[in-house]
């Protein structure tokens, strides 16, 4: 029954067609054509007086013409809009990769961006660069959403009113003239520190051309203590670079070198490489951590000591004495130590025995004296050239914001240019910057958002995102990195470099105001590479630079630098004072940059807001972190928990907290508090970056502004703080994981290295399956053909996973995962496919929890969990419509279009990895979800651009979960088959990386083909540390874990308990096997059998 039916088009299309024809219908050509095509009186139809309607009516009557006429209801018309001029290199449907770098205050991150159809869609690390080796972190992964942020500044403003860019440019031209006339008198430029050689060069040229102008640089997160100390010790312009992979013993003094300010991609990589165990005899590094809050570094540490930040200086002094770094006068009259001295003595011994392969690092919060002491300690340990090295990189001098404030106060400044920055929000509170800025005549601001500073600026210019501009950066290891644009500025924005170049009258090209090509970067590039003999040599070098994303061999060589304590001005500061005794009336406050929003720049980034914090699992907020004991003594909380959940603060799974008023130095802040086990007593940690009064829709009103308490005198650590409880209503937190306990199940398995060496098969001895009968089942396991098909599997190494959340954001970026908003997260409906579970463990913790007390000093274990792709998947059997099936390659496949939303699969999943779209999170506004169809429905155009075209965007009512990046798998298979002309069935060994694996800076996630005996994942799964989650359920997951191994120093106090939590539980259980008769029934009864208290070595006899 096939008939060629000429369905007439929809009226709309017909109109469009004819409209375009009308445009030229009066040409003679067309009239002539009309006569030949429509001989019967065409001229009558087409004249000046005929209406379109009658024309169409008449046309429709003629059946000789193919379907021209009024239409009935047919299928909606879709259009294909190809290019007019085909762009070079682009193949429709395929991606291109370009290298660039993300500018950062502690060194740029080298990146490789995937570009689809002329726009960037995914960020990866640059695999060519040795500092990151293709890895990235959560902030780099999420920065692409900032490019497509619909709330980004997209217009030029004057006094808050929209003006055209032409007018703004005209005004700028006039100022430039006046500034040039008086050599910049009255002009001040405040910029952020992008570590860009081009910007440095332009700043220097600016100072030369406008000698009367004032230049200041402000990075709120940079305290400058570390750099000051290094320059004092090694000379001006010295920069320290660490080699963590060479360190056998590492001691961290409040330095979160894995996920915090002190972290670089190389530090994570180096640490993980030193940690990873290929087999039971592999060497493993050891990490000691003394910290003022729980960080991922503390979680990875073998020995951790919690200590308020102001007490850490005493530790540095003691350590210096022990290792023999006695030459500094700071160690005269040692301050009093507030912790067990044996801890430090044994740690020092361990450091000294490492023969130079030791490293001590201090956190950026610690005062310069501590950094100086640490530098002296590292020298005494003879670590220079091994675990750290010094190289020289002079930076241009500029004023600090404090000095700039003085200049403004003296009335000398009439024009203030702010490039980036947000000083109204984050300037030190004692400067009263708001008034200062208002006192300046004209404020011109180049900003990415219309934020607090823009509100008080005369002129506002939109700043371009780093993916939109040319530039360069000093990468984390000091090499010269390229920054190339992936897309034209979406909103006519410009970068700081372009602005400075404009003031320097740099030639911009015909009809252009800003230099928007690579000329500025090329100028700087020429100075980096030795004289180019010919243009050809330059072009070659430049092309390679842009292609690779960095200049090869530009990593500055380390120079053997003698430790010189020449800074006399430092002496006054370097006498480490005795630490204050802290109490509930004399609290310490520590400011930290948040791991998610950094210093506040990412506050409008939905992915990062919804990302659970690595330790607290808090989303969409910040809080004052404190220990349970502190909260108890302050009278704001009673410190009791029930079954690993903070009792009294949780209500139907939602976490509430009281709001406290924190007062220090006469300034107050109202902020809710959050109890973190393992937090030191009498100290509060305040994450910065939240509480913006004016930003985009995502960040507006989120969190609390800790900058209000931060002064230039004490930007990091404050004491003499007091807390009172307010009568404000309880504040709701959206925490993704409130409970800390594994509740007796061996979900994360760990052991200390000695135990592992004695019992290599310990992993099998843990877990319920160790004392249950073997899985004998009626049903045959599903057969998989390892010959014919790939068999995908994944292995996650818990020893190296640091819980940095890079995988979570990478997955969100790759798979178009929506954000759901705070309310939905509070209901447990977060949508991220991979989650990092964190459990507090440790024998001490068990004792405390057995008593119902929140653990004060537990260990922490982290475990990324994603869909495990079980071979015997419980989710597949219960789907009534077969929307989730298993494919022959071992993947548990989710078919979105078939799903009807019964959610039985999520119910049945024992690992709770399935996510349901309760609402249409993509199109509906997150604060109006419950209006349903009556609510506003809109997708911002730029958000559409950010989606990965190879993955479906899910609608309401559909279940989703990790697919092992099936789009990458299929693309790899297809590309390989085409490349080899169908001769090879399988892709080469380890040639495919899934999103989480590609992002993980510690290389903890390994994905590959199990049917290939040479692939890494096959080798990892054959190791004795390999285990599956909840093995006894016989789900046979394809994602398995390598148990965590810790490396305690047996001479340290408490060493015999490190990592022994679950092992002790096993011993405890086995010792009772005789009595299991009547108590066997109590296996499930948590109270009687004390499952929460997994090991009570002391109380064993008394309880039973």
């Amino acid at each position, binding site marked *: *029954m*096939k*008939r*060629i*039916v*000429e*369905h007439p*088009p929809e009226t709309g*299309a*017909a109109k*469009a*067609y004819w409209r*375009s024809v009308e445009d*030229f219908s009066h*040409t003679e*050509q*067309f009239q002539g*054509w009309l006569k030949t095509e429509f001989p019967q009186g065409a001229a009558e139809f087409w004249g000046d007086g005929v209406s379109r309607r009658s024309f169409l009516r008449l046309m429709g009557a003629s059946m000789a013409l*193919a*379907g*021209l006429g009024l239409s009935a209801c*047919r*299928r909606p*018309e*879709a*259009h*294909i*809009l*190809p*290019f*007019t*001029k*085909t762009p070079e290199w682009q*193949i*429709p*449907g*395929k991606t291109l990769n370009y290298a660039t770098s993300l500018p950062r205050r502690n060194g740029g991150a080298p990146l490789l961006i995937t570009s689809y159809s002329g726009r960037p869609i995914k960020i990866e690390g640059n695999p060519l660069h040795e500092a990151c080796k293709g890895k990235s972190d959560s902030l780099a992964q999420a920065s692409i959403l900032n490019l497509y942020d619909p709330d980004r500044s997209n217009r030029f403003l004057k006094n808050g009113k929209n003006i055209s860019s032409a007018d703004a440019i005209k005004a700028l031209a006039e100022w430039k003239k006046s500034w040039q006339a008086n050599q910049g008198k009255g002009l001040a430029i405040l910029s952020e520190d992008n570590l860009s050689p081009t910007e440095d060069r332009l700043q220097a040229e600016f100072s030369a051309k406008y000698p009367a102008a004032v230049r200041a640089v402000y990075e709120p997160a940079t305290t400058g203590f570390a750099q000051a100390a290094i320059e004092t010790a090694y000379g001006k312009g010295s920069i320290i670079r660490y080699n963590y992979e060479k360190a056998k013993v590492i001691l961290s003094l409040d330095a979160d070198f894995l996920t915090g300010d002190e972290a670089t991609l190389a530090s994570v990589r180096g640490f993980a490489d030193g940690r990873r165990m290929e087999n039971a005899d592999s060497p493993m590094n050891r990490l000691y951590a003394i910290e003022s809050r729980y960080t991922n570094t503390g979680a990875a540490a073998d020995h951790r000591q919690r200590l308020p930040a102001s007490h850490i200086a005493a530790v540095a002094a003691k350590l210096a004495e022990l290792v023999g770094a006695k030459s500094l006068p700071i160690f005269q009259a040692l301050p009093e130590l507030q912790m067990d001295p044996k801890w430090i003595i044994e740690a020092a011994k361990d450091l000294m025995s490492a023969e130079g392969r030791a490293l001590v690092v201090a956190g950026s919060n610690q005062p310069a004296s501590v950094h100086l002491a640490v530098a002296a300690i590292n020298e005494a340990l003879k670590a220079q050239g091994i675990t750290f090295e010094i190289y020289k990189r002079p930076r241009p001098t500029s004023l600090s914001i404090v000095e700039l404030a003085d200049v403004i106060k003296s009335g000398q400044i009439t024009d203030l240019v702010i490039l980036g920055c947000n000083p109204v929000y984050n300037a030190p509170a004692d400067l009263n910057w708001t008034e200062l800025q208002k006192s300046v005549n004209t404020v011109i601001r180049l900003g990415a958002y219309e934020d607090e500073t823009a509100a008080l600026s005369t002129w506002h210019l939109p700043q371009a995102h780093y993916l939109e501009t040319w530039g360069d950066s000093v990468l984390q290891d000091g090499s010269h990195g390229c920054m190339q644009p992936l897309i034209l500025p979406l909103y006519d924005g410009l970068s700081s470099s372009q602005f400075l170049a404009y003031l320097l009258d740099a030639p911009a090209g015909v009809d252009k105001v800003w230099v928007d090509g690579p000329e500025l970067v090329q100028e700087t590039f020429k100075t980096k590479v030795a004289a180019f003999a010919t243009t050809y040599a330059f072009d070659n070098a430049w092309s390679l630079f842009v292609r690779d994303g960095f200049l090869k061999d530009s990593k500055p060589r380390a120079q053997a630098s003698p430790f010189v304590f020449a800074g006399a001005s430092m002496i006054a500061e370097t006498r480490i004072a005795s630490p204050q005794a802290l109490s509930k009336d004399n609290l310490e406050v520590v400011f930290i940059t948040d791991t998610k929003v950094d210093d506040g720049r990412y506050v409008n980034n939905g992915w990062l807001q919804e990302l659970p914090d690595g330790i607290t699992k808090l989303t969409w907020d910040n809080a004052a972190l404190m220990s349970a004991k502190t909260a108890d003594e302050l009278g704001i909380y009673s410190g009791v928990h029930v079954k690993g959940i903070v009792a009294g603060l949780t209500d139907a799974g939602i976490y509430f907290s009281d709001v406290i008023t924190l007062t220090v130095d006469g300034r107050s802040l109202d902020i809710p508090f959050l109890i973190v086990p393992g937090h030191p007593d009498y100290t509060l940690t305040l994450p910065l970056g939240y509480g913006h009064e004016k930003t985009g829709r995502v960040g507006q009103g989120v969190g609390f502004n800790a900058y209000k308490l931060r002064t230039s005198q004490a930007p990091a650590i404050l004491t003499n703080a007091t807390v009172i409880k307010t009568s404000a209503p309880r504040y709701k937190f959206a925490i993704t994981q409130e409970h800390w306990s594994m509740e007796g199940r061996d979900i994360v398995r760990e052991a200390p290295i000695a135990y592992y060496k004695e019992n290599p098969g310990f992993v099998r001895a843990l877990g319920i399956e160790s004392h249950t009968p073997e899985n004998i089942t009626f049903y045959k396991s599903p057969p998989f053909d390892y010959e*014919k098909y790939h068999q995908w599997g994944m292995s996650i190494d818990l020893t190296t996973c640091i819980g940095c959340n890079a995988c979570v954001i990478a997955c969100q970026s790759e798979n178009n995962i929506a954000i759901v908003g705070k309310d939905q997260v509070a209901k447990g409906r977060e949508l991220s496919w991979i989650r990092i579970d964190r459990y507090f463990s440790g024998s001490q913790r068990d004792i405390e929890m057995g008593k119902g007390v929140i653990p004060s000093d537990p260990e922490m274990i982290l475990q990324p969990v994603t869909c495990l792709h079980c071979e015997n998947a419980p989710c597949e059997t219960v789907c009534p419509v077969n929307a989730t*099936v*298993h*494919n*022959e390659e071992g993947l548990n*496949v989710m*078919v*979105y*279009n*078939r799903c009807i939303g019964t959610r039985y699969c999520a119910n049945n999943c024992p690992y709770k990895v399935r996510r349901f779209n309760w609402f249409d999170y993509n199109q509906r506004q997150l604060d109006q979800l419950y209006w349903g169809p009556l609510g506003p429905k809109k997708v911002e155009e730029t958000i559409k651009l950010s989606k990965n075209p190879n*993955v*479906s*965007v899910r609608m309401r009512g559909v279940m989703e979960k990790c*697919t092992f990046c*099936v*789009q990458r798998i*299929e693309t790899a298979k*297809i590309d390989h*088959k*085409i490349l080899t002309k*169908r*001769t090879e*069935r399988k892709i080469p060994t380890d040639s495919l990386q899934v999103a989480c694996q590609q992002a993980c800076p510690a290389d903890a996630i390994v994905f590959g083909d199990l049917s290939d005996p040479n692939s890494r994942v096959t080798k990892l799964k054959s190791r004795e540390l390999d285990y599956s989650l909840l093995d006894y359920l016989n789900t046979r997951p394809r994602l398995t874990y390598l148990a965590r191994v810790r490396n305690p120093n047996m001479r340290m106090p408490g060493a015999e308990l490190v990592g022994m939590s679950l092992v002790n539980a096993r011993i405890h259980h086995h010792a009772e096997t005789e009595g299991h008769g009547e108590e066997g029934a109590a296996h499930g009864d948590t109270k009687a059998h004390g499952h929460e208290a997994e090991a009570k070595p002391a109380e064993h006899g008394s309880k039973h």
Partner: protein
Amino acid sequence: MANIFPTWTKWLPLKLVIAMLCLGTMTAVAVTYYFTPKYTRVGYQPIQPVSFDHSLHVNQLGIDCRYCHQSVEVSGTSSVPSTQTCMTCHTQIKKQSPKLEIVRSSWATGESIPWVKIHKAPDYVYFNHAIHVNSGVSCYSCHGQINQMEVVWHDQPQSMGWCLECHRHPEGNVRPKDQVYNMDWRAESPSVQRKEGQKFVKEWNINPPVNCAACHR
């Protein structure tokens, strides 16, 4: 009691049942044809903004499919050509033809020609052209006798069931690799096609996936 119901109503229930059954069957049959892509899609022949004639360009002029649909051998999409591709010839040939006015104005102004999409798979289906044309599946198998179409119409239903038919029995549609773009090539007979097809399937390791993840991602 008087007879309320006349005699003829005795047969009514039976007649009603038979009528329902007939109606039901007819509805089912109608739906399985008229509500499926076999009817709703096949024959769709929208008017294109430019009346591009495939029979002229392919049959008469002998232009290979890939001259315009350039990415079909490497990419998932076969890419409708850009205006530049048209202008490679039409800056010389038929420079003033009114039929090409839209092409010329597109080239001048930079506005895309709004081609009407005929073959459209749903958004959740990811079809990849490259793997098919590299596996011996010709344009003809899915798009019909394009080289004889003056105005392109939707020739095959392209429903999921139709795709699966070939995926389950690929030997019916696989041809020598040098004949993939030859729209007029046919096997001598269906049995020859099957035999040759089986040979190709074996030789080229053709194993078309029938699991959902192959297309639904």
